[in-house]
């Protein structure tokens, strides 16, 4: 339970609004739904103004507990002789000074009533008035609970270098006693830590029984097809089929279809601009965790892998995914795909010997020269790499990116071609892919997504708003007690992350090398 109190001065027209503004900040930080926050603000502001206009001063007290905001405004004033009359719109006893400022139109109490769920006004002539109102606070809609992650951890390979700590865009990694661990509620399944981990302790989970070359379909990213040195794409396709697959399909036609679908929505739908493409499931997760206000910008379409999965239906499919987020997205639709979702490495190891044998048999096949890439789509801003994606999402959130119709963000540098899990350099693979366009023909489709994108409560301190408020106060105090050097020695990426670990019971203050033993034992 959080209790806030503000004194209100009589006639202080300039200072009025401070209490309701502060209240708004508190309600936002505990994750209250934005409509309720707006109503609470309006009601509190009207109550504040009433004290300023009509009374000798008073006090606004707000209590936030179990899903409800209770506000009590008590004044020292003349009292209201006829409360029902005061509740009627248009009735006012305000001074000419107040009226000159645009108040005193007889709308204050009716406005409070309209914006609250329960209002009670009691008044004693010559003594004062008490205005009490309550507003139900629902948390901003969010999916609950941890979700599966596709990040694999091989702790025995960890060298304790801690490069992953700084690489993670959501501060989800901890390294303690040379053991990396992931806070799943924050992890967005991107590739940042994988790219930063030289010894390979952090990687993409593989199928438990390896590459079982059944007589099914092999679904691959274009970057895989273009990632075998100077072996031509059609040769690679042939050798992939040679592993025993009935068909090899590339996801790229689905990427093209999704792009068309997003541009179409940007031009015709009422989605807020810019429309964000859900092409990269890691960016979608990043938005759900860190930018919940941007969820409404996401085109309600399935990612390319999800659309391909839907088209392949009941067929026996092995998916070669280029990052954890693609695997997680596939598993969310079809948990049994776990046995058939494999890393590019596994496929490369199976195909490379076949390609080498082929080269020995018929040496000197030149790779084709690349043709010009397709015409760029003027209304589409393609953003790649976590630094740029974060910067652009910030811009959208601040309302500063209004001249762009749609954004196609990829968490990896240079899009999926830049995934650290693929064997070839992004630029080389993309160049080679452009050269071979047409070597892997196929049709794609885009689908409406069955389940809408929803914010995740990753950064909320507790699903219970009352508990979240308590933890927020403790977090402030804990952050102040730490040195702010963000050195990473404690195993958390920043002092703020350690403070949160302490408040959430995941760590103790003594982990900080700069805190004295006495201070450390205080936590």
């Amino acid at each position: 339970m959080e209790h806030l109190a503000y004194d209100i001065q009589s006639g202080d027209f300039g200072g009025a609004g401070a209490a309701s503004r502060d209240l708004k900040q508190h309600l936002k930080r505990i994750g209250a739904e934005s409509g309720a926050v707006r109503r609470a603000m309006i009601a509190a502001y009207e109550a504040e103004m009433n004290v300023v206009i009509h009374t000798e001063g008073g006090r606004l007290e707000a209590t936030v507990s179990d899903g409800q905001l209770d506000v009590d405004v008590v004044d020292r004033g003349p009292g209201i002789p006829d409360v029902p009359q005061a509740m009627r719109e248009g009735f006012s006893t305000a001074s000419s000074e107040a009226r000159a400022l645009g108040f005193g139109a007889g709308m204050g109490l009716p406005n409070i009533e309209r914006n609250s769920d329960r209002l009670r006004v009691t008044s004693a002539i010559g003594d004062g008035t008490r205005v009490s109102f309550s507003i139900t606070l629902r948390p901003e809609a969010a999916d609950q609970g941890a979700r599966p992650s596709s990040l694999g951890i091989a702790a025995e390979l960890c060298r304790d270098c801690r490069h992953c700590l700084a690489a993670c865009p959501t501060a989800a990694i901890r390294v303690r006693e040379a053991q990396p661990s992931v806070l799943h509620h924050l992890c967005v399944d991107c590739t940042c830590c994988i790219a930063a981990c030289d010894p390979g302790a952090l990687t993409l989970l593989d199928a438990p029984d390896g590459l079982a070359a059944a007589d099914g379909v092999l679904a691959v990213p274009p970057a895989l097809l273009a990632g075998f040195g100077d072996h031509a794409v059609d040769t690679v396709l042939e050798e992939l089929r040679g592993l025993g697959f009935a068909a090899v399909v590339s996801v790229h036609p689905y990427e093209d279809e999704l792009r068309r679908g997003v541009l179409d929505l940007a031009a015709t739908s009422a989605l807020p601009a810019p429309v964000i493409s859900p092409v990269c499931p890691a960016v979608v997760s990043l938005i759900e965790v860190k930018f919940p206000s941007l969820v409404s910008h996401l085109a309600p379409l399935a990612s390319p892998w999800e659309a391909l999965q839907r088209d392949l239906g009941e067929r026996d499919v092995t998916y070669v995914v280029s990052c954890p987020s693609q695997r997680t997205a596939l598993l969310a639709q079809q948990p049994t795909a776990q046995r058939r979702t494999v890393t590019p490495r596994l496929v490369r190891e199976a195909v490379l010997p076949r390609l080498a044998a082929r080269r020995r048999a018929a040496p000197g096949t030149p790779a084709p020269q690349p043709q010009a890439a397709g015409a760029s789509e003027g209304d589409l801003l393609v953003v790649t790499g976590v630094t740029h994606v974060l910067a652009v999402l910030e811009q959208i959130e601040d309302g500063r990116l209004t001249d762009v119709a749609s954004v196609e963000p990829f968490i990896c540098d240079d899009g999926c071609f830049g995934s650290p899990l693929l064997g070839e350099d992004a630029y080389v693979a993309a160049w080679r892919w452009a050269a071979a366009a047409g070597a892997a023909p196929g049709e794609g489709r885009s689908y409406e997504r069955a389940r809408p994108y929803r914010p995740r409560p990753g950064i909320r301190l507790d699903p219970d708003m009352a508990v979240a408020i308590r933890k927020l106060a403790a977090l402030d105090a804990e952050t102040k007690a730490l040195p702010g050097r963000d050195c990473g020695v404690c195993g958390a990426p920043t002092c703020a992350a350690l403070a949160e670990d302490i408040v959430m019971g995941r760590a103790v203050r003594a982990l900080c090398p700069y805190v004295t033993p006495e201070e450390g034992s205080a936590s």
Partner: protein
Amino acid sequence: MKLEDIARELGLTELTSKVTGSSQADIERGYASDLLSDVLAHAPEGGVLVTLQVHLNVIAVASHAELAAVIFAGGRRPDDEVCTKASAEGVSLFVSPADTFDVVGRLYAMGVKGNHA
């Protein structure tokens, strides 16, 4: 309709300069009133307010109602303190020599509508 286009078309003088990205804000709705409680109750979020009131409480109300901009009609200018406060709150302020009726009429002709249009 972008705020900067509105300002140009109506020949408005901008009083706040540091409201980031506001010139690109898309204004679809507007409200005209000098009664601040009425503004609070009815002004559309993200919209523009046309008013004669130039005191500090207008900024508090505009911020509470999450308005993008305020146009002061009839050539009325607020104090510097009001402009500073508006910049801090992210509300753009403009002044027009035209009276409220003319400002609203021209906004309407540009496609900025009221709550029920």
